Structures are given as structure tokens and as C-alpha cells.
């Protein structure tokens, strides 16, 4: 087997295209994924026209003055604003494709906010020729407008709570340059109680005062709760997140696990399947199995070679990705265990494909065609499809090494669950595909 390994390595070395692919693949993938993960998405360019005069930016709410322009800043947190001078210019830029969308704030928006008689409206323009682009712009702008709405509502609620507090406790209210003393419900209740105690017993006015005092107390007690009610209005839904199942892997770390799993799968399957089929295409298989090498030995050699190449490639890829993403090198032994087990399982699947396809081109095509749906199925989240279909997908995914590879790599890289189970799963699949490959060799010659 040693001589066969040496021979295959020599053949690999003399296949410059394949060698370049093997060497460049981890570098290119690592750099691409690294940039994608570390840079984050670019902010979309959106034309912005604010028609509100600077003097009208401040809204008066009683004695309070709210600077609305401060809340407009919320709109720009997720977009790159391109300032324009007119509504027509904004629309033109959208039409020409210079910007993804346009946001126009009309001049009367602060007036409407101040009066509160009708809702204030902003205008959004976008190009709908590309549904994906349309959905992206729509969701981005709508979510930013919702954030601005929430911030304004919260501020309005705070002002309202201050007024209600004045009604309950009393105090001073500045109005038109004068200061008014507001009695407040608490003090009203105290005055009425004193007046009632001054009345003779059995006076009919005593009962009337009793009713007014009860109303005053009831109003005070209920208005005391209003700040909590208005607080809820300002932010009616709050999010309290609890993870029920699965790990808490950050998206970037999970993307690394996916990238490594996909690369392992492609490289190992294609190499193992192709190199086994090559033995038949070169007509050497029958010569070899005439007592020179056992059929099982040949399968082990091909799967082992492909797994070893994929192991080196995956390690190089992780080293490259570590430049962009924070990876815990203390877990290196687990990385190695996960990658090695996955590579062996994919190697076994590769030789099974090679043994069944028998020709290099057919084997490569079959390996490629199987890889895509296997990876796709393993990444379908629960809830995205019906529960019955999801169960089918789970079973199908469990028959191939991609899903346990992903689980093993996620566990090894991100401490997301126990790695032992996926490793056992991979070992079982390696044996099963090895047996299938051995069966396929019966009609290989």
C-alpha cells in the first residue's frame, strides 16, 4: 500500500491543475469567508431629502421641546445617506440606479407630530425591478422608520407622564411666560378631608363631600399607574430571548464550521472517487488485484490518501480563517479529531462513488451532484418546512457525512454540544460506505 500511496502522490504532483486547486482552494476560501465575516455587510446607499426647515426641527409639547432631527439620525444607522436637494433628484437617482432607494421627509412632518391630529408621513422610493433588492431596501428602511417611531413615542410618553404626575401631585406649570400653581389631586383630597371634618355630624353636605373625596382618591391611585401604562405604550413589545435547543454559536463561527465542512466534502469526495476510478480507467485495477493488492487495501489507500489531503487542506483553511475570526486554538485536538473523522467518512463515501461510477468523469460528476443537495438538506432549519418533511430531511441527512461533519466541526470549533456523538456517527458512516465501496468493486473490473 505504501508504494501505491507514493505512486498516487507522484501522480497528484504531476497534475498541476489539480495541485494548484488543492493548494489555492483553502487560501481562496479562507480569504473570501474571512473578509465576508470580518467586514460585515455594506450599508446600502439611499438618497435622503430632508425638507423640514432647520427652524421647524423642534416640536413643542407643552413646556417640553423635542428636537425631531435628533431622532432622524436613527434612520441613518443602517443606510449610507446620499443627500439630495429635491424630491425629483431623489427619484432620478433611484431610477438611474445610483442609489437603492430614496427617503423624503416632507416639510410639514414636525407640524403634524406637534399637532397629533393626523399621522406624520415620510416618502420612500425604490426600484422594484429586482425583487431581492426591493425586499432588502423595503425591510431596511421600514425597520429604521420603526426604530425612529419607537424613539419618538418613548419621548412623547415621558412628556405625558410628567403632566400626569403634575395632575396627581400638583406643582408649578410654566405657561405663556407665567407660572401657574397646579393644586393636584393629592392636595385636593387633603383639603376636602379637612372641610368634611369641619361639617357637623349628620350634615347632608358631608355625604356629598365623601363622594368627591372617594373620586379624588380613586383618580389619584389610578393615575399613579399611568406612567407604567404609558411606558408600555412607548415600548409595547420587549424581547426576552431564551435558547431552548442547540448551541449559541455566533454566526461567524458557524460560517467557519460550514466552510470547513463543505471544503472537506468536495475535496475528499472528488479525490477519492476520481483516484479509484482512475485505476480502472488506466486498466491497472485488474493487474493490481491479482494478488498484488487486496481490493479492501486499495479502497483504504484511496480513502486514506483523499482524507489526508483534505485534512491538510482543512487545517490550512482554519489557520487562514483564524486571521479573520477569533478561533480557540486551545481546542486544536478537537479540531483535528473532527476533521480527521469527517475526512475518513467522506473518503469512504468517495471510494463508494468511484467504485459504483467506475469512470473518472462519471465519478467526479456524481460526487459533485451528490455534494450540493447533501449540504443543502443538512442546512435546512427546523420550521422552514413541514414537520413531516423535516423528519425525512433529517433521516436523509443522517445517511451522509455532511451533517455529522457540521455537528462535529461546530462542536470542535465553537464548543456547541458534545463531539462524541457526531464522531461515532461518522465512524459508522465510514464503515457503511466502505462496505458499499467494497461491494461496488465486485463489478469494477
Amino acid at each position, binding site marked *: 500500500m505504501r*508504494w*501505491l500511496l507514493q*505512486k498516487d502522490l*507522484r*501522480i497528484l504532483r*504531476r*497534475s498541476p491543475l489539480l495541485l494548484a486547486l488543492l493548494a489555492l482552494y483553502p487560501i481562496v476560501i479562507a480569504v473570501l469567508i474571512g473578509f465576508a465575516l470580518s467586514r460585515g455587510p455594506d450599508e446600502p446607499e439611499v438618497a435622503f431629502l430632508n425638507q423640514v426647515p432647520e427652524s421647524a426641527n423642534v416640536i413643542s409639547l407643552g413646556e417640553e421641546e423635542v428636537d425631531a432631527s435628533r431622532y432622524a439620525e436613527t434612520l441613518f444607522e443602517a443606510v449610507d445617506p446620499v443627500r439630495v436637494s429635491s424630491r425629483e433628484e431623489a427619484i432620478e437617482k433611484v431610477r438611474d440606479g445610483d442609489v437603492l432607494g430614496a427617503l423624503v421627509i416632507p416639510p410639514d412632518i414636525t407640524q403634524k407630530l406637534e399637532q397629533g391630529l393626523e399621522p406624520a408621513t415620510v416618502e420612500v422610493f425604490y426600484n422594484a425591478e429586482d425583487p431581492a433588492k426591493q425586499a432588502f431596501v423595503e425591510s431596511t428602511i421600514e425597520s429604521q422608520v420603526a426604530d425612529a417611531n419607537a424613539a419618538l413615542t418613548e419621548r412623547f410618553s415621558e412628556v405625558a407622564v410628567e403632566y400626569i404626575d403634575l395632575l396627581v401631585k400638583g406643582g408649578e406649570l410654566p405657561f405663556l411666560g407665567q407660572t401657574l400653581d397646579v393644586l393636584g389631586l393629592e392636595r385636593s383630597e387633603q383639603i376636602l378631608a379637612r372641610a368634611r371634618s369641619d361639617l357637623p355630624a349628620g350634615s347632608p353636605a358631608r355625604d356629598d363631600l365623601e363622594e368627591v373625596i372617594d373620586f379624588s382618591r380613586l383618580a389619584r391611585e389610578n393615575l399613579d399607574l399611568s406612567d407604567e401604562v404609558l411606558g408600555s405604550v412607548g415600548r409595547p413589545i420587549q424581547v426576552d430571548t431564551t435558547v431552548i435547543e442547540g448551541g449559541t454559536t455566533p454566526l461567524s463561527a458557524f460560517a467557519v464550521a460550514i466552510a470547513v465542512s463543505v471544503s472537506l466534502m468536495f475535496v475528499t469526495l472528488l479525490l477519492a472517487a476520481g483516484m479509484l476510478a482512475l485505476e480502472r480507467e*488506466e*486498466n*491497472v485495477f*485488474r*493487474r*493490481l*488485484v*491479482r*494478488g*498484488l*493488492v487486496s481490493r479492501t487495501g486499495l479502497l483504504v489507500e484511496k480513502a486514506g490518501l483523499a482524507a489526508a489531503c483534505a485534512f491538510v487542506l482543512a487545517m490550512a483553511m482554519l489557520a487562514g480563517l483564524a486571521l479573520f475570526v477569533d478561533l480557540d486554538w486551545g481546542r486544536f485536538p478537537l479540531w483535528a479529531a473532527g476533521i480527521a473523522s469527517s475526512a475518513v467518512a467522506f473518503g469512504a463515501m468517495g471510494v463508494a462513488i468511484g467504485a459504483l461510477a467506475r469512470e473518472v468523469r462519471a465519478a467526479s460528476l456524481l460526487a459533485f451532484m451528490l455534494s450540493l443537495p447533501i449540504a443543502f438538506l443538512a442546512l435546512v432549519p427546523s420550521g422552514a418546512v413541514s414537520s413531516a418533511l423535516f423528519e425525512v430531511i433529517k433521516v436523509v441527512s443522517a445517511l451522509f457525512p455532511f451533517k455529522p461533519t457540521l455537528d462535529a466541526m461546530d462542536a470542535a470549533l465553537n464548543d456547541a454540544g458534545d463531539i462524541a456523538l457526531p464522531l461515532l456517527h461518522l465512524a459508522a458512516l465510514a464503515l457503511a460506505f466502505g462496505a458499499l465501496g467494497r461491494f461496488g468493486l465486485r463489478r469494477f*473490473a
Partner: protein
Amino acid sequence: MEPSTAAPAARQTATAPVLEAHELRKRYGDREALAGVSLAAARGERVAVIGPNGAGKTTLLSILAGIQAPDSGHVSRVPREVGWVPQQVALYGKLTVAENLRLFARLERCADVERAVERMLAQTGLEGRAGDQVATLSGGNRQRLNVAIGLLAEPPVLLLDEPSAALDPRQRDRLWEFVLAAGEAGTTVIYSTHNVAEAERYAHQVVVLADGERLFAGSPRELEGVVEASDQDFEAAFVSFLRQRGH
């Protein structure tokens, strides 16, 4: 060495057989590929297996080589004691001539690998091409190398499945020159061929197969004698023989 143009002398029947096959049977589904074929070859003897398409020639050689197991019957030697040269060149195109020889010499567990490689390079006349990748060789050179690999372990018996198919006459001559040299050194050569002239020219013994049955085993002259066709050439005699036997 020039290949002999005269018909070889009949084999020495007194010599003990180096390879024997008894009552070999093989079926592929309903079709009987071999129906109780027996064969014996002495040391240094050259045996040509001839017959029409589908006669069972390749099946017989595959069983003798140990690539296929017979349904019944027996072969006196285990596969490792028999050199085998498949019809299609079985070499690694990306490896050089010397690397192919070295690899198979190691797999054959030759005692002195480098000596075996040098010996085969000399016998094939490919010393000058030792460092060339096999993919760059001509068909004739590739086939000589293909045969050389079958001879690396110096087996007592060499099996060749249609060795000269797809070679031009000059390449065929050079190939036979090489094969005959191996025979001269005592190797028993059993080959299948469609080229009846090659059977007449190089074989001590001719085995005629048709529809899986062995119809004849003897020297080319004996085959001509069977059809009583002294005025016919060997090919015509062979065709007459098949007709007489209903094929």
C-alpha cells in the same frame, strides 16, 4: 533478435506441463462462456488460443490469470505464479517508464527491484525512454512495456490477451521479438489472438475455441491435417475447420 518466420517445431509432449487447466466451466447468466475447457502447456512452449468472437478466449485467459474464478474446474498454478498482460495497456500514463516498472517490481516483491527494472528496460529497448512519461510513448512502446511488467517477476508462465491488437506490422514484429526472447529463456507463453497468422507463425500449440468449447488442441500443422487441406494456407484451413465443426 529477428522473429522466426518459420513455423515452430511441435512441442515436446514428454515435457511435464508447467500449467494445466482441467474442465474449466464458466457461465454468464444463460450463456455458457466456457464448457469444460482443458489445456496444458510445457516449459518454453508458446500456446495460441484462437477462435471467432465470443469463443471464450478472454474468459479462458482471465481464469488462468486468476482474475475470474471458474464455476468449476481447476488451474494448476496460483495467480502470483503467472504473469498476465491485459489486452489494453495497463500502465500509469503520468508515471515514467522506469517508475511504472519500479512500482510493479515493488508490488511483485522482486528481490532486487532496480536490477529487475534495468533488465526490463534492456529487454524492451526502452533504456533511452526510461525517464519519459508513458503517456508520451507510441502504442508499440507502451505495449512492450505492458508485456515487460508481466515479466518483471520472472514468472514461469506469461499470459497475453491479444497482445498485438491495434499495433502496426512493424510494432507487432518488435513486440513478438520481445515475447519470443522471453520464451527462449524458458517462459511458457499463452496468448489469445484474432490474427491467425500469428498463431501459425509463433505458436507450438494452437487451441481452437468456439462457443466456449475446445474444438482442437495441437500444432498448426496438425490443424491443417485435420481438414486435409494441404493446398490451403493456415487461415483457410482454420476457417474450413470451423465450418466442418458447424461454426
